[in-house]
């Protein structure tokens, strides 16, 4: 066991201290406890600017060691790395900016195109609405018992070149269906012209051949693009149920009699728009109750399935043979369904228009009662039969029964003077969106709608007994109108057909 004492000379210590170089331009000093400078700063210190000094008292020896470092040395490494990061960041920012600029530029251009497209789309949507608004009013068939008519139009594009129209004036039904050559906007424009010409020319003329002739003259007269129209035009006299028709190159319609469907044997005349001087002739067709004239455009027969096969006239005829006693609305639905199944997902390539004109077998839906209250017992079976034959929603039966019972009881009890025999006729009819009822009698002019209605908002004791019936009619039916026409009280009532759940 020994003790080694190392004693080093002051000179050696000084040279050690001097040799400590923590930074390129740093130096150390050593000062003893009595302020004697043992190691001083170098003769010519290379420290410029600000310096930092770090001192440490060496325990037991009473010596102070001081390290002097120029600030530039201290932060040099740090500066170097921050410069590197700054550079990286700057490059990044630049790249991001460049990419964003390019994409914004693209977006800008894309947006401009998009706005233009949207604009065109909006205009086409408006055009479509206008075109749809040219289609005849759905309520027409509600006003004429003998007639059951329904049309459908599905343009292949926003707007189409098909047209159909019908209206009634002077107890005659004027109707037409047509197809303008081409598709889209140009066809739609000509379609709108043809439509308004049909309305104008048929306003004072009910001979289909002369309406057609005038239509052709107008359209051919100024037709620089040689667009043409195929048109089938008919006029049905509702009192004789004879249809006179004229066919300008249109697909022959299907006539359905007693459930048998066949193509109407017509010799088509020249298309509209080709020859100003073309002559047109009309043919006649006698309609019996239950008969249907089913019209269509080539969008039906030329509907294609994915295998590029056409629906064709034979398939159309077969579908029509299945119609039986269906209403016009159901016939349209069934034909649309048949073509839909055939086409099987393939895109619709042409406008599709269907129009069913059916002569209503009215006799089956008319009930005539004498003014004996017991006659009301015949109402419920009549309604049940009417509902069954028209496949109407049975949930509507009970309330309709009640409204009619109230209205008929009113007539039976009050319309004719005591002891006088009288009749009341109920005609039931199905329109596209409503069940229509008409009650007609030859009794004293009496508007039941002006009858004092029961005030239901007062306590029961103050209520008048009476007026409940008319209140129930108004409550149940969606529309009720009264008129006194040609010596008859006519009460028309409609119950809207809510869509089945």
């Amino acid at each position, binding site marked *: 066991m020994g003790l080694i004492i190392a004693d080093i000379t002051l000179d050696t210590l000084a040279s050690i201290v001097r040799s400590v170089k923590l930074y390129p331009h740093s130096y150390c000093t050593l000062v003893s406890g009595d302020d004697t400078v043992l190691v001083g700063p170098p003769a010519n210190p290379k420290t410029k600017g600000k310096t930092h000094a770090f001192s440490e008292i060496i325990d037991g020896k009473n010596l102070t060691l001081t390290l002097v470092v120029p600030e530039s040395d201290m932060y040099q490494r740090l500066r170097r790395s921050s410069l590197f990061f700054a550079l990286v960041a700057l490059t990044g920012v630049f790249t991001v900016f460049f990419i964003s600029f390019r994409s914004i530029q693209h977006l800008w251009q894309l947006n401009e195109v998009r706005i233009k497209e949207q604009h065109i789309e909006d205009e086409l949507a408006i055009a479509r609405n206008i075109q749809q608004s040219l289609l005849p009013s759905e309520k027409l068939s509600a006003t004429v018992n003998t007639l059951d008519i329904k049309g459908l139009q599905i343009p292949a594009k926003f707007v189409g070149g098909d047209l159909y129209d019908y209206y009634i004036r002077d107890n005659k039904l004027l109707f037409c269906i047509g197809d303008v050559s081409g598709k889209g906007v140009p066809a739609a424009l000509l379609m709108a012209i043809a439509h308004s010409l049909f309305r104008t020319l048929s306003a004072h003329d009910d001979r289909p051949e002369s309406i057609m002739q005038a239509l052709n003259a107008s359209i051919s007269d100024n037709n620089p693009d040689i667009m043409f129209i195929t048109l089938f035009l008919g006029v049905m006299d509702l009192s004789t149920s004879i249809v006179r028709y004229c066919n300008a190159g249109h697909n022959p319609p299907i006539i359905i009699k007693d459930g048998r469907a066949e193509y109407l044997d017509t010799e088509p005349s020249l298309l509209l728009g080709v020859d100003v001087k073309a002559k047109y002739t009309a043919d006649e067709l006698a309609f019996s109750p239950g008969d249907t004239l089913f019209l269509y455009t080539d969008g039906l027969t030329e509907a294609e399935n994915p295998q590029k096969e056409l629906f064709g006239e034979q398939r159309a005829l077969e579908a029509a043979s299945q119609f039986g006693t269906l209403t016009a609305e159901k016939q349209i639905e069934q034909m649309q369904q048949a073509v839909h199944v055939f086409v099987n997902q393939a895109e619709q390539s042409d406008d599709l228009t269907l129009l069913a004109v059916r002569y209503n077998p009215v006799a089956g839906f008319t009930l005539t009662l004498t003014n004996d209250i017991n006659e009301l017992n015949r109402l419920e079976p009549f309604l049940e039969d009417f509902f069954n034959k028209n496949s109407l929603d049975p949930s509507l039966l009970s309330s309709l029964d009640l409204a009619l019972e*109230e209205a008929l009881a009113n007539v039976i009890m009050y319309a004719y003077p005591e002891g006088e025999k009288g009749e009341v006729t109920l005609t039931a009819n199905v329109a596209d969106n409503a069940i229509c009822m008409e009650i007609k009698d030859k009794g004293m002019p009496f508007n039941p709608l002006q009858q004092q209605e029961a005030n239901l908002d007062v306590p029961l004791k103050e209520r008048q007994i009476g007026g409940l019936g008319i209140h129930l009619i108004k409550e149940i039916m969606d529309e009720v109108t009264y008129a006194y026409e040609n010596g008859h009280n006519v009460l028309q009532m409609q119950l809207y057909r809510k869509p089945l759940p």
Partner: protein
Amino acid sequence: MDITITEEGNTINAVFDGRLDTVAAQQITETVEPLLQNAGRTIILDCEKMPFISSSGLRIFLKIRKEVEAKGGNMQLRKVCPEVRQVFKMTKLEDVFDIIE
């Protein structure tokens, strides 16, 4: 429309079977006479087999109710089908009648 009336203690039970329409309402004016005479007691109108009521039918019900109020009895309608209940609703009579299941 057939109406069967039975008595049980202080209660009179009237079963309405069939449509209470205009024709039926005229035919039953005499049949419901016992109900009016016993209006001081409890009268139950059983509507389970009555699928339809017209305004003249309502008038008969209201007539009985009026008599019951005058004579201090009470009247209840039993098992009213949804169609008839709907008519009560339209004429705001749903709360006027005491309807029980």
